[in-house]
């Protein structure tokens, strides 16, 4: 029998493996299945680094995991203010993880503002580690506390661990010769060290990582290692923690893994598409949150056949990418909603020129500048319809951070095969979230076939492949194939400017048919559960994890609910309409005010219900589960 550890999820019950042999003095280790932990502090406190370092080592330890960074739009909001609070949450587990977790079991709060902004999410009875050194009168005032929560009894529901991280870090580093300001910047590593002890993570990989990260400034590397070890040792020696928690590795598919963030998976997916197609990748972008890191990462991949071009604006970026595609490379641009709005006219030109082009929208909260660092799915209708004229573009969405890799390759494949711009939707949650990624092997991925026309005999600029309706791609410089393309309506065969009324209708219809035929290349629908029943939950994009887990929980209770997740939003899968009609009810959860649901109702005449959330935060599993419970009957006995 074991007692409930304050560091483990309340209600998690007895650990599966029983108590582990006691390690060094004062240390007992309890095994747990899953843990959700959140680090939060001022945006100058280095919480993102703390979170990513904890994640990295946790991934190396073989846990499945999912992360949710949450940071303010301001680079440095006033220190100590609520607006300046930055957080990083992760869930890690010995089984499959779908989401970063609804509520943290452990909250590390580096100052009063962070406590105030995050406390409501901590599960009752959860562990709360606070840096008492930051609970000064001015900081309490800035956070809006009238009395000190550490003293007024308001934290009684939690296991509070008061640690003066500020002072302990300063003591550990007093002989380093660093200034007090520099020492202050090391306290996140003290907190990290403490978390390492609490969750029984190995210290060696972290020490190596610090050495690498601060390689150019060995004195800072030494200081951070000292702070890190001081935090770890504090956990071991301080009486306040009676045990640490161990989460065993998860039984995941065999292979080589690395932890990957969504934007990184997107960038590597683009390079991989270049490898699979033999095409050079021409990426043109303009800085915008949360898409910029795709540009940053790709700019390091010149040696893999990638050229990046930072343009003067969003319009130039898609224009330059389209120029690259006209030149026979694969043009790509990435942005977020406001930037995509600016690119709209060029997307129309790309539809008219019928050249491959990949447009990535890392969605964020809108309208206008909206919530730049928060996630949302409210650009779906913009992607589907946000252009002048009849302007069909294939649209697909990534489901998880690692899935950004596959979705990106699929976008490139369709763009090249069908000679069309393609919109790939990801979002801020996927972009900055991370999870383990099963590294592919060569041969796992099918090549992307590219045919450049070189034969001048009988060339007609808009002659089409009978199957895909794609026109031929011709690289400028090819002898005898000079031709002109443009945004004026073109003759359906020659491509010469044509104002003929019937020709225009033929061209509009043909462009629509071409995009519709993309569906011929789709695999099976991503369906979990039977293909009929009481409720079908139909999602798209980054809601995948929360829907998958909530449906799994509901099914475990015997509820007749299935989950279909749409890879493609345009065209829709050919079997979707029939599937929707085999369920009594259809629920469409979206992080917008109901966009896909409109499309489904319009396309299939089904009475699909909407379930929406626009708070800049992903759905929690419990929110979705509660809605599923309302719409389904409990277990039926046969």
């Amino acid at each position, binding site marked *: 029998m074991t007692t409930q550890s304050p560091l483990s999820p309340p209600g998690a019950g007895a650990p599966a493996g029983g108590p582990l042999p006691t390690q060094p003095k004062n240390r007992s280790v309890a095994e747990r299945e899953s843990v959700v932990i959140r680090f939060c502090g001022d945006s100058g406190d280095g919480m993102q680094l703390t979170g990513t370092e904890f994640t990295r080592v946790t991934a190396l330890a073989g846990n499945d995991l999912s992360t949710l960074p949450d940071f303010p739009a301001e680079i440095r909001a006033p220190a100590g203010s609520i607006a300046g609070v930055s957080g990083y949450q992760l869930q890690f587990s010995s089984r499959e993880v779908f989401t970063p977790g609804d509520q943290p079991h452990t909250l590390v709060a580096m100052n009063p503002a962070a406590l105030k902004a995050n406390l409501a999410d901590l599960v009752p009875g959860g562990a709360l580690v606070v840096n008492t050194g930051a609970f000064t009168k001015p900081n309490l005032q800035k956070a809006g506390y009238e009395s000190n929560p550490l003293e007024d009894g308001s934290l009684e529901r939690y296991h509070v661990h008061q640690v003066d991280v500020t002072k302990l870090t300063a003591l550990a580093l007093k002989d380093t010769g660093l200034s007090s300001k520099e020492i202050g910047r090391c306290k996140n590593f003290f907190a990290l060290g403490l978390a390492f002890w609490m969750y029984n993570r190995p210290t060696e990989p972290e020490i190596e990582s610090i050495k690498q990260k601060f390689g150019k400034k060995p004195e800072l590397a030494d200081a951070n290692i000292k702070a890190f070890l001081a935090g770890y040792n504090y956990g071991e020696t301080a009486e306040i923690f009676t045990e640490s928690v161990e989460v065993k590795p998860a039984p995941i598919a065999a292979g080589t*893994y690395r932890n990957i963030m969504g934007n990184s998976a997107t960038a590597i997916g683009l390079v991989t598409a270049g490898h699979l197609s033999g095409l050079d990748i021409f990426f043109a972008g303009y800085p915008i949150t949360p898409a910029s890191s795709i540009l940053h990462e790709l700019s390091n991949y010149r*040696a893999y056949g990638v050229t990046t071009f930072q343009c003067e604006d969003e319009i*130039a970026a898609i224009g330059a990418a*389209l*120029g690259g595609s*006209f*030149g026979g490379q694969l043009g790509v641009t990435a942005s977020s909603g406001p930037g995509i709005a600016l690119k709209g006219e060029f997307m129309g030109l790309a539809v008219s020129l019928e050249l491959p082009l990949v447009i990535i929208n890392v969605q964020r909260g809108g309208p206008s500048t909206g919530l730049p660092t928060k996630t949302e799915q409210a650009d779906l209708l913009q992607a589907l319809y946000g252009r002048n004229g009849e302007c069909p573009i294939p649209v697909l969405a990534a489901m998880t951070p690692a899935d950004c890799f596959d979705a990106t390759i699929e976008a490139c494949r369709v763009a090249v095969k069908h000679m069309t711009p393609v919109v790939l939707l990801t979002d801020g949650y996927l972009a900055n979230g991370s999870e383990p990624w099963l590294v592919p092997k060569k041969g796992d991925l099918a090549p992307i076939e590219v045919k450049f026309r070189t034969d001048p005999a009988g060339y007609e600029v808009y002659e089409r492949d009978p199957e895909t309706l794609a026109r031929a791609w011709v690289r400028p410089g090819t002898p005898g194939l000079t031709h*002109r393309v*443009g945004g004026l309506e073109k003759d359906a065969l020659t491509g010469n400017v044509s104002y003929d009324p019937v020709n225009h209708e033929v061209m509009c219809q043909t462009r629509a048919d071409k995009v519709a035929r993309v569906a011929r290349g789709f695999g099976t629908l991503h369906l979990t559960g039977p293909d009929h029943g009481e409720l079908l939950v139909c999602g798209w994009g980054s809601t995948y994890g929360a829907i998958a887990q909530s449906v799994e929980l509901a099914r475990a209770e015997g509820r007749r609910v299935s989950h279909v997740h749409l890879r493609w939003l345009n065209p829709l899968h050919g079997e979707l309409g029939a599937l929707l009609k085999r369920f009594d009810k259809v629920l469409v959860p979206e992080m917008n005010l109901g966009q896909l649901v409109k499309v489904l109702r319009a396309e299939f005449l089904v009475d699909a219900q909407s379930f929406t959330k626009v708070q800049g935060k992903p759905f929690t599993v419990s929110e979705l589960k509660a809605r599923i419970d309302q719409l389904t009957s409990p277990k039926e006995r046969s």
Partner: protein
Amino acid sequence: MSNPTSMEGAAPIKLTRKDYASDQDVRWCPGCGDYAILAQVQKVFADLRLDRDKTVFVSGIGCSSRFPYYMNTYGVHSIHGRAPAIASGLKVARPELAIWVVTGDGDGLSIGGNHLIHAIRRNIDLKILLFNNRIYGLTKGQYSPTSEFGKRTVSTPHGVPDRPFNPVAVALGAGATFVARAFDTDTDHLQAMLRRAHAHKGTAFIEIYQNCNVFNDGAFEHLAEKKVHDERVIALEHGKPLLFGPGKSKGLRFDAHGRATAVEVGEGPGQVPVGAIACHDESVDSSGYAFVLSQLDYPTNPVPIGIFRAVERPTYEQTVEEQARKVAPTGARKDIETLWHQGDTWVAGSGGDAE
């Protein structure tokens, strides 16, 4: 289709304009200055035997932007103001192609001003021809960013309330390495400018005064007309004194603040000896001198045509290529698996690769 311009090693056949004309009917208004410019471009391409398979004309929207349809080269007729963006991407992706941008005063300086200045700033090897007719023609007669202050147009019945851009000054302000000005009707001079633009390595910007005989007829007649041309126009020639007027009887002198004064040139009383007139130097490192010249305007001063500035600077795409050679000296791509496996990896299960 055979392409005489690509023939290598064969006996040269004399090429003509027609070898560079597409099969499309030219549809500008009769009398439009664009015809003359098209003819000179085709003539220069024929004279220089330029390879049409390796040439791309890129344009935006407007009368001038129909230009690519009439050239038997590769071409893109894009969207309003954005030609420099497409052309920049194309040139960086395919540096071996010769890329010409055709734009107008509205396309290039109004809706597309941002792309124009940034293309010039980067010194991407593009030949940019800006047809300046000081009016919006395709949309029927609204004032443009080069229209004169006070001009009455359909959209400014009380007169244009803002000051015009000077395209040459804009280009110089953006750091242009090659800037020239020409008239649509002065065929020999225009050809000479096009040849020099072709030879320049980097962004070459030519403002071409172009008459719109429908919406702004005679916009440059006060300069082009034979009777007054010598008096009101000064042709810049590298290494030659800044002379103009009938029989080159006048010269320009500048005070310490760049103000120009016209003087009679000669040895007589009140005249200035020709040796005291500064010689034009298009290669001056600072663009300040060229900018002073760009400010010369009718009626105070003669209007300069010719090459204001021609200096050598590394092009954007050269720099990008040099950077690429540093990271990939052989040009061979790195193995994709190296990228997949970068950073921390771990092996799960029995089927994983050993790291």
